């Protein structure tokens, strides 16, 4: 088996200051009064993880357990405070669809912009343009500025662009609930097709049925620590017990 993602002793610390010091004046005053203290908060502690090629891992946990932080560390948005992350291949992070969209830009312009964010060339995006527009079903709105889109339309466009290439690793953070029922079905099918081709998936969801349907492995995060990691059949009962 080929190892796609490996995390060694990964920890992520945030400074939660009660009052945010973000002006020079405040900073100097507090420095002089020796009043500059932060409350440390470890969102993740000592996470060790190895994910093999073709694994579809469900990430379970209550709100604030560190699920999104973990996804963002793997996607490279956060650099962990300690520990190392090793990863292989192209990662498609679908943490929030349409990150990188500009509201004043039209749908068409945003396709090129978001494509560039994901590392595609302009020529490639031109080639795939029609396919993206067709999948998103937004043909008649494509020259309208994005600020006039509904949130569902925005998510549909984001999804259509993000899935235009087959990545090696797909990170899905609560995004399978985008759009209306019809589009949800369509997007789930697209992701299933991708999975059948053996890509690695990290899937964050509160919907246990969906996790069971999609994943073969699962992990539980609790207050920043990994509670357990293993085959889905073994983990789900533990989680059920946890949530009562």
């Amino acid at each position, binding site marked *: 088996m080929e190892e796609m993602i490996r995390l060694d002793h990964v920890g992520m610390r*945030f*400074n939660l200051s009660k009052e945010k010091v*973000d*002006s*020079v*004046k405040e*900073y100097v005053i507090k420095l002089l009064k020796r009043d500059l203290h932060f409350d440390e908060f470890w969102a993740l502690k000592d996470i060790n993880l190895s994910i093999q090629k073709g694994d579809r891992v469900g990430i379970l946990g209550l709100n604030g357990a560190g699920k999104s932080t973990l996804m*963002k560390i793997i*996607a*490279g*948005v*956060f*650099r962990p405070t300690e520990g190392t992350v090793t990863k292989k291949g192209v990662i498609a*992070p679908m*943490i*929030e669809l349409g*990150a*990188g969209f*500009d509201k*004043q*830009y039209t749908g068409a*312009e945003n396709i*090129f*912009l978001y494509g*560039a*964010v*994901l*590392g*595609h*060339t*302009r020529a490639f995006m031109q080639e795939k343009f029609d396919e993206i527009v067709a999948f998103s079903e937004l043909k008649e709105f494509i020259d309208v500025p994005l600020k006039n889109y509904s949130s569902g339309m925005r998510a549909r466009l984001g999804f259509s662009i993000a899935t235009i290439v087959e990545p090696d690793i797909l990170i899905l953070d609560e995004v399978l609930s985008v759009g209306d029922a019809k589009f949800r079905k369509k997007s789930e099918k697209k992701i299933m097709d991708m999975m059948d081709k053996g890509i690695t998936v990290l899937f964050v969801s509160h919907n246990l049925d969906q996790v069971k349907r999609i994943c073969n492995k699962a992990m539980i995060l609790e207050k920043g620590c990994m509670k357990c990691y293993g085959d889905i059949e073994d983990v789900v009962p533990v989680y059920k017990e946890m949530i009562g």
Partner: protein
Amino acid sequence: MIQEWKRYNNLFVELVRKGIKLKYRRSYLGVIWSMIEPLLTMIVLTLVFGTILGHHDKTFPVYILSGRLIYSLFSQSTTTALKSIRANEGMIKKVYVPKYMYPLSGIVFNYILFLISLVVLAGVSLVLKVYPTMQIFFAIVPLTVLFLLSIGVGMFLATVGVFFRDMEYLWNVLLMLVMYTCAIFYYPDKLLDSNVSWILKYNPLYCVIDCFRSCIFGTDVHYGMLLYAFIFAVVSIIIGGTLFRKNEDRFILYI
């Protein structure tokens, strides 16, 4: 790093394109604004300061315009860079993109608009019979120094701006001081002869402006000043760049 640049150079182009496109979106005159605006200020400044200071020199408008164009490029590009990280907060929090893209693309798009607005300078010069000499080609040197200076100062401000929000206001005040000490709408001779000549001489932006004007009017270039501005720019890039690199991973925790 080279690999990273390869992967993201298209994004860089897109960000520059976005900056230019959105600046004049939904305005009827579009990019022409970047020519009208300096032209209008030139007229006002010429009327006001030409009268007050008694400069009835016919080429005074060219003098004003050349200084003002350079100053406004510096002020706009550094201000854009200063705000760039916060302005792209949404993107930074959700996808990985090399962070230097944001301030740098802001500086580049302002610089491109600046180059377009130089057309006005050429037009006004010809109308007022300030004809170019061979020396005009040397103008590329101060313009390059100006670009480097904007990058260095911009990277520094982009970093500091993340941690201290009031930097925006502070920088506005500083920019105003820089403007008054750039000899944009007055002749510097009296000041240069006085014992406060350092106000001008150690202002790198004034050095750039002075050198640029020499190229336009075909007078002697003060190489010492140009060298000083160049060294200042390089040092600012080293300091700004290092500061940015050292802190970029922490940006996300502060925005």
